[in-house]
């Protein structure tokens, strides 16, 4: 992260002692930052400041927070329309993400992508694809290129459980295994594809088992436990980077809110939602920190304050940011030749 996000390392709250404490505090920061950003997006959507489709990541933060910071700077990421969390965890500037929600020229995609199409060349963040499973072939190609050029970089590819029913998923897992492509497939299994529950769409609901049938290491992970996710990510990334083979993680998670802001969530049982909220990954980590005596109320409050300030500044900046001139409407259809 760069200094213009509004906080330098020296100002970070909390007095982290040992490495483990530091690590847990960092994970908490990542998750909380995503949660508060998403909550702000919901609020701004309700105020009609953000339009289009908006899919928030609330409830699933442990997945991005556990995996993305485990990547190296040169690694590539391909994600879906539910990608704010991945972009934030990657260090894509929050201010530019918020500006994109506003459709401003200062947005990561100059206002041409919106919530579903966040891109950032500096961090090799390749979107933001809103075609279910449409990003998997790109991930295979990015990994192929990195391998052909002798780089040790890997590509992390995020997608939902719904993608497992698509042909592109199966084509790509086969290709990646066959060609030994360094891709970490991260399946965010939140049990629903819009209103369709997993068992209503998948004949075999053990998604890791299906990935394993292509001849790659694949296993399920508790996606509500950020420490478990991080451990799994490190293990899997080691296999991908050092072994030069793809690997598949099924992150078992849940979205606390509706599929998108358009969705009235009629297909899920309230009790089911409440039961999953009991397993909120942020609450769990906070409780653990408190119990272990490594997280104080002041530490948490200071972290909240830091995040709130960063988000508020981003909103102010987005409100004030200019729009792309309409005269430039047809730019970026073809590359500009100099």
């Amino acid at each position, binding site marked *: 992260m760069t200094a213009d996000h509004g906080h330098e390392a020296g100002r970070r709250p909390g007095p982290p002692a040992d490495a483990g404490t530091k690590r847990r505090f960092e994970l908490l920061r990542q998750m909380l930052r995503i949660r508060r950003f998403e909550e702000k997006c919901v609020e701004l959507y309700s105020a009609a400041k953000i339009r289009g489709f908006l899919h928030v990541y609330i409830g699933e933060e442990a997945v991005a927070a556990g995996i993305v910071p485990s990547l190296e700077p040169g690694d590539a990421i391909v994600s879906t329309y539910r990608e704010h969390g991945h972009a934030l965890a990657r260090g894509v500037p929050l201010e530019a993400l918020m500006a994109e929600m506003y459709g401003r020229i200062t947005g990561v995609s100059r206002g041409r992508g919106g919530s579903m199409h966040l*891109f950032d060349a500096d961090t090799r963040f390749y979107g933001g694809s809103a075609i279910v499973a*449409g990003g998997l072939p790109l991930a295979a*190609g990015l990994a192929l*290129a990195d391998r052909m050029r002798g780089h040790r970089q890997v590509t992390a590819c995020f997608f939902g459980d719904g993608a497992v029913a698509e042909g592109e998923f199966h084509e790509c897992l*086969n290709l990646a295994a066959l060609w030994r492509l360094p891709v970490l497939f991260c399946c965010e299994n939140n049990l629903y594809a819009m209103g369709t529950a997993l068992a209503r769409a998948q004949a075999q609901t053990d998604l890791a088992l299906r990935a394993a049938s292509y001849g790659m290491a694949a296993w399920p992970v508790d996606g509500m436990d950020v420490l478990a996710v991080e451990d799994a990510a490190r293990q899997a990334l080691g296999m991908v980077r050092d072994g030069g083979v793809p690997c598949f993680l099924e992150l078992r998670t849940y979205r606390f809110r509706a599929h998108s802001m358009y969705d009235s969530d009629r297909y899920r049982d309230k009790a089911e939602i409440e039961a999953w909220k009991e397993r909120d990954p942020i609450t769990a980590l906070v409780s653990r920190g408190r119990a272990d005596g490594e997280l104080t109320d002041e530490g948490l409050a200071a972290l909240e304050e830091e995040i709130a300030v960063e988000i508020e500044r981003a909103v102010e900046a987005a409100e004030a940011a200019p729009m792309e001139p309409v005269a430039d409407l047809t730019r970026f259809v073809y590359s500009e030749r100099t």
Partner: protein
Amino acid sequence: MNEKRVTYREALREALREALAGDDRVFLMGEDVGRYGGCFAVSLGLLEEFGPERVRDTPMSESAFVGAGIGAALAGMRPVVEIMTVNFSLLALDQILNNAATLLHMSGGQFNVPVVIRMATGAGRQLAAQHSHSLEGWYAHIPGIRVVAPATVEDARGMLPTALADPDPVLMFEHVSLYSTEGELGGADRQVDIDRAAIRRPGRDATLIAYGGTLVAALAAAEELSGEGIEVEVIDLRTLRPVDDATVVGSVRRTHRAVIVDEGWRSGSLSAELSTRITEQAFYELDAGIERVCTAEVPIPYARHLEEAALPQPAAVVEAVRKAVG
């Protein structure tokens, strides 16, 4: 210049060989491009010369390998992806339209996609309704990609290096009837300009617009008409998107008559687009209505006589020109 006679297929192969030898970012991938030598034998021998990393046989997964070509291009490679025929490209349409054509724009100019996607197109070999269609006009509908159709041996040789130098996705359509045709290849600089249509035969009485496989029928018709004293200007469109309006409209302004030959179906076709462009830009220059010779609106049938009847034949082109001139 050192002239030599080669087939269209050999010209394509030579272009691929030169690209593979000259730039280690270039690689070829597709179904049966390696061990088999390409389903139209275009890449025969390239596996032996460049090895399996750079001449890659893929599984039958059009979406995955076309998308992988797009992804590899994003990461700095210059992939040439071969799809057996345009009919199968429909299984990769998602990748071509939703990724290749949109990424630069959706990313606000951050990610261009320098991929070349080649495929065979067209009828004439009695392969019936799932191997014979001409869908390049559909692709020409899409902003964000460039669509080219080499109709001559020189263009088969020269369009690939130009396409590879393009920072954006280029789709190259090779008409199946052309692979075995022969022509002269000049020895000079091979790269050809793909921004311009070419006047393949000058004439004053009517403008005949064709591309790819239909150029042969157009030139045959022009030859016959010349015997009747009708001199037709034959334009090879070469690039179907973006269309070179200047050359097309410039010719129509001189001849005042336009006939379009298109192997696509008439409704919603490239010929419809060209006709509209001409009327938009040169309506008052026209001395006759625009004529179109297209494929009959039927899935291409197997039986030879039916297939021939479905396709734009020189006789129909001659008839259309006579009507425009008459």
